[in-house]
């Protein structure tokens, strides 16, 4: 084993239709770590997550679990254990809840899929009740729960979450973050969290990055970020 982190981005530039959206991002995530990315709208947070999944054209180096994944097709990156919950839930709305969970494990060849589905129904009993309904008919909170369970069905080593709290009632957000904390602690899944709710995100994260206009301007442990005046003013609002 080398001391290499689980995920390492070095000098990553990302492009949309030839326009550069990330200007050389350096970012690392250790195994089992929770990292938060803060930043204003349009700073490149979503682009960073999309770059890791191979959904955006990039240059520079992206390594996952000791292997170069820059330029690899998304399907091969996902198969290595990178699951993403995109902004706006990311469930397949035409499919039933159960089919969504099955689809989450579509790349797995082992026999424990049914067992895992039962586990996630235990965590989110409301999903079990609605297992035959289409995902599109669920409430926003239920859809986000389904999106997280669906992503976990991959048994990922790295979970990417893009604004999971968006549009959810505060009490549901708290529940969601409880589950994320448990996923991280009990299963050792590393998490990269892009989140507007910076206070909550910094509570569960060990480290954080601040992204501004496509560049990382600050990188520090979570408690240091919470103390930082600029961060407090811009993202914590006090």
């Amino acid at each position, binding site marked *: 084993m080398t001391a290499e982190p689980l995920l390492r981005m070095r000098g990553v530039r990302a492009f949309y239709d030839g326009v550069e959206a990330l200007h050389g991002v350096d970012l690392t995530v250790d195994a089992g770590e929770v990292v938060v990315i803060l930043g204003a709208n349009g700073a490149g947070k979503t682009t960073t997550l999309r770059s890791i999944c191979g959904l955006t054209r990039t240059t520079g180096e992206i390594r996952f679990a000791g292997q170069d994944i820059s330029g690899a097709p*998304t399907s091969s990156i996902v198969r290595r254990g990178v699951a993403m919950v995109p902004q706006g839930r990311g469930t397949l709305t035409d499919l039933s809840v159960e089919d969504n969970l099955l689809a*989450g494990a579509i790349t797995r060849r082992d026999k424990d899929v049914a067992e895992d589905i039962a586990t996630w129904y235990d965590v989110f009993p*409301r999903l079990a009740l609605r297992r035959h309904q289409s995902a599109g008919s669920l409430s926003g909170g239920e859809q986000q729960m389904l999106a997280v369970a669906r992503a976990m069905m991959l048994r990922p080593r790295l979970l990417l979450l893009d604004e999971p709290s968006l549009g959810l009632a505060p009490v549901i957000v708290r529940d*969601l973050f409880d589950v994320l904390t448990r996923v991280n602690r009990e299963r050792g899944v590393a998490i990269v969290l892009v989140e507007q709710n910076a206070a909550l995100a910094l509570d569960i994260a060990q480290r954080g990055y601040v992204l501004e206009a496509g560049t990382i301007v600050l990188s520090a442990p979570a408690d240091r970020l919470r103390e930082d005046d600029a961060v407090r003013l811009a993202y914590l609002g006090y």
Partner: protein
Amino acid sequence: MGTVLSETARDDQAGLDVIAIRLRQGRLRAVLIVLALLAAFSAWALIDGGLQLYLQRFFDGVTNGLLYGLGALSLVIVFKATGIINFAQGPMAMLGCYLALTVLDLGPVPVVAAIVVAMVLSGLGGAVLERVLIRPFDQNNHMAIIMVTLALFLGFNALAALIWGFHPKSFPSPFPQGAADAIVIAGARLSYQAIGTAVLVVATVVVLEAVLSRTRLGLAFRCVASDVERSRLLGIDIGRTVQFSWALAAAVGTLGACLIAPSTYVDPGFMNKILVYAFAAATLGGLDSIRGALVGGLLTGLSVSLVTGYLPGVGSELGLVVGFAVIIAVLQFKPAGLFGNRAMERV
């Protein structure tokens, strides 16, 4: 654990799927309207021409309709996976039919075996076609891909003419087709050919539904049909899944052509007319619904058979006009079709 999401929903909330209920009601209403129209026309037809004639038209309509449904099915499969309409589907099925004929020419093979061989070959052909001529294009640029399928439409017609000539050939039926091979109900003939065709079409739909709902590849197909980018994040290889849909559509199309051919004849353009009916059926049923394709086919077949059979001045040559009328009426009143969720945006 928290409070809200871990809390068990009350029993009366379970299964309360408002969207699904509303969708079902909308569908039911639309189907009832169409059935009422058909019933009204049928009542008039019965009074006008008597039971025997009506039953004969009805049997013809159902048999043809099921075949249109099969054609519609091959359009729906590709549309679901890609969002495009494959205009080359008719000529592709025609090529498949010629393949079956060629196999029959090679030696004494049962017709069914020749059809199966042709289906397998066209499936492979569909897969190659997707890889070579469809995938290189930007999959979001639907117009470009539709242009490719239009080019293929012309190209395949010309290719078939080049290889097999314009001379119409007859195609043997896999079922007994003699004058006596029929059930007679109230004087109207229901041929074994028609019954066999109906059984095969329904069996195809049942098998297809089973493949799509029970296999890993079927799940991948449904995911891609629902949302391409989210499917990519599940680790699904989009290209392979789309390729599977092209292969499946090609095989289903070939089966349809081989079942239609015995009652027509085979020449390079023989599927083009059927393609129009298949469009009508797919539009009516909903371009993204497999069951809808079958129902749409049945309704189109019945409409064409009854309208051309009863309305004075509308001869069988004007059947295509009925097909177009169905398409226009659906786009006007229910763009998503009877069972569809996605409306056709622009073609």
